[in-house]
């Protein structure tokens, strides 16, 4: 059995061969080529402390299994794979637990391991989502900003006030993975952008664009579901 002790996926560096003529693109590409933090020092583990380590691990990390499981469901979208993913995550977490810095955020550390475990072992399409797309979205989000009509607002209010159980989970599972995870960590876990950036190993600016794009997709889907039931027809 091979256990991944430390792993990291570097932040993509984007090299622009031509000047695109957009200030925002140039600025973004500077942020993208930031420092990569690689936590991979393999510490030595002696016989004496393996039992202590297990006791400490059980006391500190086992309280988060439900949160890890519900996050894992957002990655795998099915309970069977989610359970396997969480179990693998805990195997990797335990074997690198001696590298965990006490006093730092253990749950976020577990989420980072969950993310790399998913990418390395579970994602069917091994390619990373296209970060460049999200960067373009950020610009589009900015350029396309306009006021919503009053009808649009009240139609959306009506949709949200009449939201049946299960709709929001169904919609979350329908949107692409990169948007789904940003929404999950921000809106269920309540993490700030910076923390989400570390968990997903992407720049903060990308978290912002994925989160807002994700919420937008979610709202559009909820409106579609409602429309098929005859609710919220007034606008959108």
């Amino acid at each position: 059995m091979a256990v991944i002790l430390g792993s990291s996926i570097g932040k993509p560096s984007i090299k622009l061969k031509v000047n695109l003529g957009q200030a925002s693109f140039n600025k973004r590409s500077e942020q993208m080529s930031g420092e990569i933090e690689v936590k991979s020092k393999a510490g030595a583990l002696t016989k004496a402390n393996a039992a202590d380590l297990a006791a400490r691990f059980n006391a500190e990390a086992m309280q988060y299994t439900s949160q890890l499981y519900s996050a894992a469901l957002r990655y795998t979208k099915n309970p069977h794979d989610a359970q396997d993913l969480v179990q693998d995550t805990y195997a990797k977490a335990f074997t690198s637990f001696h590298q965990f810095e006490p006093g730092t955020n253990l749950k976020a550390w577990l989420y980072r391991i969950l993310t790399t475990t998913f990418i390395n072992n579970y994602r069917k399409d091994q390619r990373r989502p296209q970060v460049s797309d999200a960067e373009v979205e950020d610009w589009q989000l900015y350029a396309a900003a306009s006021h919503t009509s009053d009808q649009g607002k009240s139609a959306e209010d009506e949709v949200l006030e009449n939201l049946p159980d299960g709709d929001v989970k169904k919609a979350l599972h329908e949107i692409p993975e990169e948007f789904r995870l940003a929404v999950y960590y921000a809106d269920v876990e309540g993490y700030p952008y910076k923390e989400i950036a570390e968990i997903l190993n992407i720049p903060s600016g990308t978290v912002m664009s994925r989160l807002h794009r994700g919420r937008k997709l979610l709202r559009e889907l909820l409106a579609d579901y409602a429309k098929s039931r005859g609710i919220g027809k007034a606008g959108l």
Partner: protein
Amino acid sequence: MTYDPLFNCVRALHDLLLYIDNELADLNERLALENHLATCQPCHSEMEHEKAVVLHLKQALSKECQESAPSELNNRIAEQTAALAAQMNAMSGPQIITEIRTTETTIIGDTVIEIETHEIRRDFPPLN
């Protein structure tokens, strides 16, 4: 606060998304936005709407997407931790550590994207 002609609705509509998430860290940017919202009714109403929608989404998502770990999973993890700890105790001699570095290069049009992956694995004897 002086009137800033460069701070327009497009800017406000973008910044208010960050403001709602408590991510507009710069005090001057916050003041500029608040100043704009105080004088621009359409942006003010957009802000109230966005705030309400995001709150609603958060409540609905939190209600539906916080599943409990099945007890079977907790048991599997506890057994696994005990087995791994026993293996660590039993281990002697040199350990095999594999370091893997890969670079994935994608070229889309005129853009070159390079993603570096770095992984360290330690091999354990098979679980019994």
